[in-house]
């Protein structure tokens, strides 16, 4: 029972490998950190694990099964830029309930106010939008969450608050979390293990 990537390798141009032979594993309830320099493939790795792109080598399995493209993927990715991850023509209400209807507890925990739901995305700040993205990913069927620079755009206090709530919920639901960040201090503070991507480059 784990989200596993075995011998993953990927390139965008033939034979110019971004990384190769990566083995990565997250168990339910575990928090794994991914660190590395800019451009070393952190985001690419995150997108592979979430099933957005297929690797040129290796395989990804979720609880020993392959990801099925047509169904709700149990691995959810939270993007760095919430303003791009939300359809600008949708009211926040629809964004929030695209997959499921979140309970009031979760909304309160993240401080999502009721009147925000009637607004357009451009009428909320990045941090406020990001809360919606996090709640959206916390579908009851989600087993693993990959947070790709999820809180980078927030100030330190909000960052701490949101991460705290987020990790609490993941802990209580036994959701495996991968936190992608370049802030080593943050990773060491919240993660059980830290995996360094691209030692070669």
């Amino acid at each position: 029972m784990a989200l596993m990537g075995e011998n993953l390798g990927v390139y965008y141009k033939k034979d110019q490998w971004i990384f190769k032979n990566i083995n990565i594993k997250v168990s339910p309830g575990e928090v794994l950190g991914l660190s590395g320099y800019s451009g070393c493939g952190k985001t690419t790795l995150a997108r592979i694990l979430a099933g957005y792109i297929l690797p040129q080598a290796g395989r990804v399995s979720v609880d020993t099964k392959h990801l099925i493209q047509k169904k709700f993927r149990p691995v959810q990715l939270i993007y760095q830029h919430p303003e791009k991850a939300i359809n600008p023509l949708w009211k926040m209400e629809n964004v929030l309930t695209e997959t499921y209807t979140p309970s009031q507890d979760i909304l309160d925990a993240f401080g999502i106010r009721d009147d925000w739901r009637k607004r357009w995305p451009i009428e909320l700040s990045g941090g406020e939008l990001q809360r919606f993205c996090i709640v959206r990913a916390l579908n009851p069927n989600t087993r693993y969450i990959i947070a790709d620079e999820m809180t980078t755009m927030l100030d330190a206090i909000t960052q701490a608050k949101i991460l705290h709530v987020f990790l609490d919920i993941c802990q209580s639901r036994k959701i495996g979390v991968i936190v992608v960040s370049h802030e080593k201090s943050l990773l060491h503070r919240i993660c059980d293990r830290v995996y360094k991507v691209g030692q070669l480059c």
Partner: protein
Amino acid sequence: MLEQLGRKEDVLPYTGKAGNVRKKIIWMISFSVCLIGFIVILSFILSNDNLRVNNASKNLMPSFKYLFGTDWLGRDMFTRTMKGLRLSLAVGVFATVISVTVATLLGTVAAIFGKKIDEIISWFIELFIGMPHLIFMILICYIVGGGIQGIVISVAMTHWTSLARVVRAEVLQIKSAEYIQISQSYGKSVWYIARKHVMPSVFPQIMIGSFLMFPHVILHEASLTFLGFGLSPQTPAVGIILSEAMSHLSTGQWWLILFPGILLILVAKSFDNIGEQLRILLDPTSSNE
């Protein structure tokens, strides 16, 4: 939570100066719609008797009885102009609907079904854009054999290209958007994504595109009939009215050409105005102004 923070007033909807722009836009749109509606209604009310040849009232200047004067056969120009504009509008609507459908279909197909098909469709678009509109329309009209159907087909065949390009670009851009990939990761079907994510952002472009296409279509339709392709001379079409009036202009009958011409421009401009104002109104970044 709201009461605790005691900041209810930040949350209230947009008041003050806002709404003025919106009000002005709505006024402009309703003015244009009224003008077009007025012409359509008048064209139905006015009796066909006014179009009969009447020797008693030949070549009259504009007066209260004959608002736009009469022509050399004694026909009331006001009635002819209104009925001619109605025909132009009908042909325009029909041709626009066809071109918009073709444009939407080809644009979407080009954007979705991979590189090969995109190249083929883009080549066709360039082919159609490269040829001068009017010559191409005359050619098609001639092949089809004239008449109203000839005009509709030729106008529809030549006007879809620019809108198809817009639709293609829009779909291409939105196809790779992150929120669509996320929707896919939720296991949403292609149909759901097309309906809920792609359509809402492409639809305004299509609607505005068709409103902006309309004046072109009307003017081209008028020029085709002006050149004598298509309709029989007794049909009240703006193009025919104008081309007939040409030969009487030198005898000083300026009203034959002035009023129908002005009205044609007004109608075309009204549609252009509706399209332009809708564009401003539907743009989400200005929707609250």
